[in-house]
């Protein structure tokens, strides 16, 4: 099981949670008006790719996890990838 190093320092680490990642990806896809079915399929495909990357890694930072997910999302839905990647720099 891979541990995710949190950026804010409130909690040092938390175990990787596929449901959480899928939920955040679906939120980004819905925010750019992707149809519900497409959002679910795309989020699942991105999670699969991220999990392949996580294999053999015991610890990754939340930032790297987000970056990898955005990279995997980019070819599937560029608009959603843009929002997912830049969420923290909107304000």
């Amino acid at each position: 099981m891979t541990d995710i190093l949190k950026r804010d320092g409130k909690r040092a680490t938390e175990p990787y949670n596929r449901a959480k990642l899928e939920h955040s990806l679906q939120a980004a896809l819905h925010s750019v008006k992707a149809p519900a079915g497409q959002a679910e399929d795309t989020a699942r495909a991105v999670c699969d790719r991220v999990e392949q990357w996580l294999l053999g890694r015991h610890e990754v930072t939340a930032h790297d996890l987000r970056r990898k997910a955005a990279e995997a999302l980019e070819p599937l839905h560029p608009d959603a990838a843009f929002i997912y990647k830049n969420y923290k720099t909107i304000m």
Partner: protein
Amino acid sequence: MTALNLFAIIMLAALIHASFQLGISLLTLLSGHSLGAKSRHRKLLSLTGSFTLGAATMTALLLCSFAYAAVVFYGTTVPALVWAVTSGLLAGIGVAVWVFYYRRGAGTALWMPRPITAMLYTRVKSTGFAAESFSLGLTSVVAEIIFVAGPLIAASLSLAELPRSLQALGVVSYVLVATLPLVVITMLIGGGHKISRIQKWRENNKRFLQVAGGTALLVLGYYVYANIVVAQLALRGVAS
């Protein structure tokens, strides 16, 4: 000062106020969250509309408060010294906008204390009702007070000098122009535009908006100094 000159100051100040981006950032985030949570279109419109109404209300309240304070302290003739200080304030904020309005790097992150930004992010995430959205709109204007104080003060001093019959028109005009970008974004989102397109436009044009906002503040400062301060001093010289 003629009413036309005073209206020109109010309108330019309102345009500068409109160029500031915190409200738009918050509105974009709020829409993103609402859409991401699969909210109904009606709820999305209710949230964005309430946010815009909140921002307009706080703008009107601040403008009226400043104008009232100006009338109480100076009556209907604001001293040249106060206009001179306002002119300096506008120039100072103009340079500040040029130098550090946006944070370095990609995105449209603004120069604001990080705890305030974190608090606003948390509030946007947990906003689910129109009343909360309205409060967020009120807060967005206060959170950006460092930058909007200049145009607000210039407009309120102009309002104090306007004839009473035109003061309400001045307040309404300022609020309408200052909240116009929020109204436009609300309409775009309501009309089905993707927030990714809106955000990409903002990112591509952020330097232009920064330079335009800073330059407009300097221009307003110069206009106030040349047209009011120098004119008042010249008149005093002629009288003596």
